Every structure is written in C-alpha cells, then in structure tokens.
C-alpha cells in the first residue's frame, strides 16, 4: 500500500509570555489514499494545531513547527518553498473549518468565494468558473444554485454555509480533505446530513479525509481508523471499531465511558474523567495523563510511555496492559 500522507514526529510550539507551549509534541501517523481517519481529543489537546501544521498554516509568531516531517505524495511539505505549498493548499489538500459563520467573507458573494480556488489553481475564466461553481453547489445539495450563487453569506443558514465551505474545499478535487470539527457549530439534525455529504462526496472523488472531532459518535460511524490525542501526543490509534470495542489506554476508556452509548444497553450513570487537562507549558515528566489516571502506577510518573503494538494495527501508549 502506498501512503498518501506520512506524518513523522511532528512538533509544533507556541511561544507565549508564560513559556513555550508544546501544542503538538511529536505525533506520527500514516494515511492511505481514500482512507478516512478520525483525530479525537478534548479541547486544547493539539488536534487542530496538528492539522494546520500539515498545511503550514500556523501563524508565526507566536507559533512554529519545530520538527518532524510531513510527507505528502512523496514531498516533505515542511521543506518546500512558499509558492509550492500554496500550490498544494486548496488544490491537493483542502480544509473545512469549524465555524461556518466566520469562515466566509461577509462582503463577497459565495459564488466568488467558491470560485477563488478554481481561479488560483485551474486558471479558469469567469464563465467557466461560474459553471463549475454552479456544478459544485448542486453537488453539495444547495437548492436552486442559479439563484443562490450571487447571494451573500448572511443570506445562508449555518448548515448551508457549511455546505458552501464543503463546495469550496472540494472545488479542485483534492487528494486529502482536513475537516476541523465541521459539524460542531450546527444543529444536531444538520450534523448527520453534513457528515453524510462529506462522506459521500469524498468517497466518490477518492479523497482521503482527516476528521477532527471531539464527538466519539461521529468517529464510530464515519471513519476507518482513529487516533486519540492527549496533551499534544497520540496516545492510542487503530481501526475505529477495534479502538471503540477494546480501548487500551485509560484515557480512551474514560472518554468512552463519559459519553452515552446507543449501541449498548444503558448501565447506570456516565463516568466523567476527573481533573483538568494538563498545563502544556509544564507537562509532568512521565505520562501526561498520570495525574488523572485511575490505573496509575509509581513508574508512570517517571517514565513517558511510548506507543506500542497492542493488537492488529492497534497502538497504545500505556505502561499497563489494560487488555489482559
């Protein structure tokens, strides 16, 4: 199998007055062509930053990618020129952002905004761009596109705007789509529709997807593989069903216990994970989940656990073997 994207030991830091924040602290993963991967974790665990780092969209200063490799289609994206990365953005790798309300420019029509990538990467003229934009609007399920193409973002609902964002992202048929919590800001009923649209269109175009979310229900339904992040690192990864059924890291176990499960009978109350996420400026020397872990051992406070194989394609970073 040839991997489309290989992230190796990626590190991204933010330099703040309080100190250096290691937002992404050495993560590695592979993504095959057409594959869908879920990147899961709580707010501030570095999942969005890791995604922005792939396209070098980290604002500098204060942020900086301090190490690692992002190999996409055989090229290390961290080592190419600004022009070359611009050619990748929107063309080979596209992004969908969390907030459809603020991701669109309020003073430009949506037609112009969807056409922007086409103009940049395909060099289409006005007429061709307009036809293509109409096709895209139809593709993402916006009714009456001829009438809506000249509307402004404020004339659309949140769900419709997110569809516009999807049209924008898929306009150049990218090989990889990074969807950064695409459904967080919309109604629950719309969430499922949007995810279906993304899933349907990307599988038709053969686009691989990195789906960033904190919604475990979304992950279970829509991804092949998932990676769980905690404090800037991946602490567990593997096939989605496997991780869901047999979580091997105490954090993943806690995460799954803290959300309602529809696939299992109701048993008592939900169990929250105690404590707060760690301060990324002063991480504990050992396992960063140590202070909150219900399985902690003496050894955990000294030794930082590395990812190790715990099953078929299943990795977990815990010294204790929860499976046995």
């Amino acid at each position, binding site marked *: 199998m040839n991997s489309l994207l290989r992230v190796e030991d990626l590190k991204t830091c933010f330099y703040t007055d309080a100190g250096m924040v290691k937002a992404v602290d050495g993560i590695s993963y592979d993504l095959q062509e057409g594959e869908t991967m879920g990147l899961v974790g709580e707010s501030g665990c570095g999942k969005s930053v890791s995604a922005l780092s792939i*396209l070098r*969209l980290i604002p500098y*200063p204060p942020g900086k990618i301090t190490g690692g490799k992002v190999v996409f289609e055989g090229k290390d994206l961290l080592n190419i020129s600004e022009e070359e990365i*611009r*050619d*990748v*953005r*929107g*063309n080979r790798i*596209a*992004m969908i*952002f*969390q*907030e459809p309300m*603020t*991701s*669109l*420019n*309020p*003073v*430009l*029509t949506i*037609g112009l*905004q969807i056409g*922007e*990538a086409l103009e*940049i*990467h395909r060099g289409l003229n*006005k*007429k061709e761009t*307009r036809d293509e934009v109409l096709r895209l609007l139809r593709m993402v399920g916006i009714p009456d596109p001829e009438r809506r193409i*000249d*509307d*402004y973002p*404020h004339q659309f609902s949140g769900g419709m705007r997110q569809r516009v*964002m999807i049209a*924008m*992202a898929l*306009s150049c048929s990218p090989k990889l789509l990074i969807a950064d919590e695409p459904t967080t800001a919309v109604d629950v009923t719309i969430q499922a529709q949007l995810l279906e649209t993304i899933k349907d269109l990307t599988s038709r175009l053969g686009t691989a997807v990195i789906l960033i979310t904190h919604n475990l229900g979304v992950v279970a339904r829509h991804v092949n593989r998932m990676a769980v992040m905690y404090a800037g690192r991946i602490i567990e990864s593997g096939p989605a069903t496997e991780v869901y059924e047999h979580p091997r890291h105490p954090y993943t176990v806690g995460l799954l216990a803290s959300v309602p499960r529809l696939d299992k009978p109701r048993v008592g109350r939900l169990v929250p994970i105690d404590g707060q996420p760690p301060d990324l400026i002063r991480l504990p020397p050992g396992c960063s989940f140590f202070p909150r872990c219900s399985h902690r051992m003496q050894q955990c406070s000294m030794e930082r656990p590395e990812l190790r194989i715990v099953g078929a394609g299943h990795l977990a970073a815990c010294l204790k073997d929860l499976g046995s």
Partner: protein
Amino acid sequence: MEEIIDKAEKPKWSQTREVFNRLSKRITAMIGLVIVLIFLVSAIFAPFLAPYDPLEHSLGHMLAKPSWDYPLGRDELGRCILSRVIYGARISLLIGTMVISIGVLLGAPLGIISAYYGGKVDFIIQRFVDTMLAFPGILLALTLIAMLGVGLANVMIAVGISTIPIYARLARSSVLAIKSRQFVEASRSIGASNFKIILRHLLPNSLSPIIVQSTLHMATAILWAAGLGFLGLGINPPTPEWGAMLNGGRLYIRVAYHVATFPGLMIFITVLGFNLLGDGLRDALDPRLKT
C-alpha cells in the same frame, strides 16, 4: 457575459440601497446630502450655472451691493460674486478630491501592509506614522508648502501628505480586526497569495470606515484649502477660490459686507454639508446594524 455581470451586480445594488435607506431615515444626513449634491453640481456645471464670466471685471461697479442682476453683488474689482462662488466650488472640489486621493491611496495601503504583515514591518511603518502625527496637520502642510513653494498643486500635495497617517492608522486598525477572522485563514488554506488576500478579503472589509472618514475629511480639506488660500498660499489671484475671496473681501467688510460674507457662507455651508453627510454615513454603515 453581459448577463453574468448583470446578475453579479444586482445584490451589490441591493446592499447600496439598504445603506441608502438607512441614510434617508436621518433628516440631518439628507440635508447634508442635498448640500453636497448642490456643491457637486455647481462645481461640475459651473460654466452653465454662472450668470457671468467670473474674471470679467468692471471698475465702475466696484463693491456694488446685491441686486437683481447681481444677486450676491460685486467684489472689489466689480466681478460677479455669485459666478465667482460657483466657480470657486470647482477649486474646492478639486482640492478636496486630490487631497483625499493622496491620503487614501498612499495611507490605506501603508496601513493594510502594516497590519497584515505585523512584526518589524508594522513597527517601522507605525513609527513613521507616529512621527507624522506628532506634527499638527496644518503646520505640517505649511512646512511642506514652504519647501515645495506656493501653488495649487503644492497645496494639494501638502494637505494630502498630511492626511496620510490618518488613513494609515484607520486602515491598520480595521485590518487588525479582520485579519484574524477565519475567512482569511480559509482563503490561505485554499492557496491564495498574500496579495490576493489583501485585495480580495481585507480591502473590501476595511472600506466602510475609510468611506466615512474621507467624507468627513472632504470638509477638513476644503477648510484647509480655504485657509491656505486666505493666507495667499494657494492658487494664483485671478482664479476664484473661496479662501482668497474671503481675504480679498476682508478689507472692505465695513463698507461692503457681501464681498467677504458670501464666500465665507459657502465655506461654512459646504463644510457643514460634508460633516452632516459623513455623520449619517457613519451610522448607516455601522457594521452592527448589518443583518
């Protein structure tokens, strides 16, 4: 092709109409608009509106009082004041537009670049702007005229340059508020270059404060131009200019009030008109009122 342009224009017009609707609800703003329109019309159509040649003098009718034939009377050389006032609007409009153009065209890009790139670029540009702001505007303009020499073009350049820092600051602050918005990041994520982001996304979004400021500035520019004309630093004498007319009439104010009064009133009314319109526009373009 034409059809496409037609369709693309439609919503823009509806937005303009929306702003106009809000503007029309304010009486003061409408008064301002009417004054400004009258000013523009008389400046543009001066040769058709002026009853006499503004340069034609008649020493036999020096300082003649207003009459049916000469509604605003005649000046110290017997020239028709009404015609001179109408022609004077041309100079004021010319000075106003040029001053604003210099200020906006040089100041706004400076401010946008400063805010967008930040860091050292921002620091250097802002220290330059600070230095310019440290001078009182009129003093800076006078200094520049002292360096460049007297004349209409130099007045426009001098006053124009002294407004650059204001537009630079204004554009900078609105871009600072916009550049961290997600649509800018979204545009970067589809591969747009810095130039494209500035032109497509930052400029249109930072335009409304600049429009308001330039309307208000038009008033200031006219006032400054008149002030410099009054001091004899503006356009050469025979050409009608409100400030210079005011100065000419000053000597005869005891015997012929009208020579200085009417140009003075024109300056007053025009400045008032632009100020009223500017205030109205500020309210009408308030982003908080947008749906």
